């Protein structure tokens, strides 16, 4: 049955490659329909499985971790950006299997959508699950944060060890009732913590129903995060040591991701010093602060999915500058069909900006209304392709234009940019 599934899957991969649709999760989708236990069966061949979940940072953190593992010489199977549902993992396993069903790696690092963690975890019985954060996100997909936490909690029981964000009360609470030997916490030192509000602090103060939670003491503490031209310099503290580390990614939110990836790397047996060496080389995942050159111009893609992420982008890149900004808001399923979340974003932080923001995307006018009420000048355009072309041509040579899209807008924009510029393959 397993072999049949493998052959079926490989045939589909060959077909999709011929049709030019390489990398889709179609093979995985078909395999799972054909043989429900495919992931468990294939997964048994892996010695170590790490699952990464949370609202923001999954793709980046999983990429950091996977490239650390690969970099120290251990072959790893990982799922492509966007393939964080069960079928994406099945596709990834298939990709690394030969016609006899043998895998070419012993370690699997997968990012998993919060709602699917439980199902995937039950099938793979991971050595480690890493939970990054729980923030209001696509509310029309999950309805409520509390329920999402519950869903994640159900998946945690299958993991040997769990790494949790001590600074996010909803995530830290997932440690309740579990043996402390299974739990590892990461967090940031006080001055850094305030730069990354958790959901309860999102609107400025704590709701009364969240008791002032004294978070658990993190075994991994972020003590420094300073942005540089090429990313950032950071530092971490464990019980016994202090280590500097560098990232090619800016911002405190990425420092957290980096810290989590390093903690995960050490937990699965890698040497911290080697992991730190590797992590400094990892380039941003697609759409996440990825820079794309078009001739002499440069654009930086800053994916946004929810208020916390958008506020981070505003803080890190947009506030206080007159860089050209293009914001593209869609409301397809993957973007979140309810755009109410735009009103939980602190666009008022752009006050003082003179150069109008270009608002586009299917719900560009909703964004324009939000900006109007934030009294930030903007111009609304409908045709994405023409708007992008105009935006790039208006850039001065050597100037960076910031493009802030929701997920499907990012896919469209990236496709358009690929036609005209120098864009890498979607990160494998």
């Amino acid at each position, binding site marked *: 049955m397993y072999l049949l599934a493998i052959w079926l899957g490989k045939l589909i991969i060959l077909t999709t490659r011929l049709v030019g649709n390489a990398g889709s999760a179609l093979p995985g989708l078909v395999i799972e329909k054909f043989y429900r236990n495919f992931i468990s069966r294939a997964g048994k061949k892996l010695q170590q499985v790490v699952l990464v979940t949370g609202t923001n940072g999954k793709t980046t953190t999983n990429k950091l971790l996977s490239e650390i593992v690969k970099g120290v010489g251990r072959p790893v199977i990982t799922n492509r950006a966007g393939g964080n549902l069960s079928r994406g993992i099945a596709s990834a396993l298939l990709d690394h299997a030969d016609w006899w069903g043998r895998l070419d790696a012993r370690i699997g690092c997968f990012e998993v959508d919060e709602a699917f963690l439980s199902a995937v975890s039950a099938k793979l019985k991971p050595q480690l699950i890493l939970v990054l954060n729980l923030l209001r996100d696509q509310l029309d997909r999950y*309805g*409520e944060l509390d329920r999402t936490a519950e869903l994640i909690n159900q998946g945690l029981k299958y993991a040997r060890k769990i790494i949790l964000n001590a600074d996010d009360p909803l995530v830290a609470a997932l440690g309740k009732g579990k043996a402390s030997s299974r739990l590892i916490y990461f967090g940031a030192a006080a001055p850094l913590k305030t730069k990354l509000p958790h959901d309860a602090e999102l609107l400025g103060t*704590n709701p009364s129903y969240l008791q002032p939670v004294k978070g658990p003491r993190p075994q991994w503490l972020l003590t420094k995060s300073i942005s540089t031209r090429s990313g950032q310099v950071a530092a971490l503290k464990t019980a016994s040591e202090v280590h500097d580390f560098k990232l090619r990614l800016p911002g405190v939110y990425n420092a957290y991701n980096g810290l989590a990836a390093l903690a995960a790397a050490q937990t699965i047996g890698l040497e911290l010093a080697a992991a730190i060496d590797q992590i400094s080389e990892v380039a941003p995942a697609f759409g996440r602060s990825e820079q794309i050159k078009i001739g002499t111009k440069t654009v930086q893609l800053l994916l946004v999915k929810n208020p916390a992420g958008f506020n981070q982008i505003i803080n890190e890149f947009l506030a206080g500058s007159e860089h050209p900004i293009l914001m593209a808001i869609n409301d397809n399923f993957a973007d979140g069909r309810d755009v109410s979340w*735009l009103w939980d974003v602190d666009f008022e932080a752009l006050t003082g900006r003179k150069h109008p923001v270009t608002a586009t995307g299917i719900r560009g006018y*909703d964004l324009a*209304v*939000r900006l109007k*009420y934030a009294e930030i000048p*903007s111009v609304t355009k409908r045709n994405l392709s023409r708007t992008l072309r105009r935006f790039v041509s208006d850039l001065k040579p050597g100037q960076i234009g910031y493009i802030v899209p929701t997920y499907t807008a990012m896919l469209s924009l990236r496709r358009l940019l690929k036609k005209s510029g120098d864009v890498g393959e979607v990160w494998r």
Partner: protein
Amino acid sequence: MTWERYGGNDSRHLGSAVKALQIVHLYAHEMNIYGDRGNIISLVKRLEWRGLKAKITEVGVGDKLDLRTADIVFGGGGQDKGQAMIAKDLRRRQVNLRRALDEGVVMLAICGTYQLFGHHFKTRSGQVIPGIGLFDAVTVGSDHRMIGNLVVDSLWGQLVGFENHSGQTELTAGQPALGQVRKGHGNNDYSQQEGAVSHNAFGTYMHGPLLPKNPQLADELLRRALQRHGASAELEPLDDQLEKRAASIAGNRPQ
């Protein structure tokens, strides 16, 4: 379409009658999900652009609230846990809120707050959470999650928003709804009615948030609030083309 600063200074005749409109934001932190604070932003800005001021007071569980000075009371949507937290506190304020309603204080209650403004909410597990009965309505938890774009015909034109609830709200005969559903579910999955209106209190399941894309309703609330001060009912018109465009596009999105 380029944004321009709107707003005139000819509203001084209104300004002299009203120092600042007092807006009470109920349970801003317990019921803080879904971007509903955008309704407050809409009201405040639309006043500012007419040369008027607004003062927001956030009232949480256990906080003092003097409704005698309130002009507009607003409560947003939240998670089940938030709703459970505020229910008792809201009940304690029932008499005062009832009096305020009778005296014409403007109110806007969204989703979870809207449900508690009815008589009660019966959860799926059978638990009955008493409400404050400002609307003659009852809500029952169900397995049907009503999610999607919502378009409603009302006395204030077409309203466009987004609903996300599994509570089914039934209005008693005689309790006016906010409007008829054009697209989506509204109060429940059978009546084609959405929301409720009692005197100057409006209840609805519409997120979006509601007021930014439906500025004519925002202005209606402001007008009613200003009228209680004896101010003229005339509000200088603002240029709402951007809002109308956004509403039109949103209203044409699939349900």
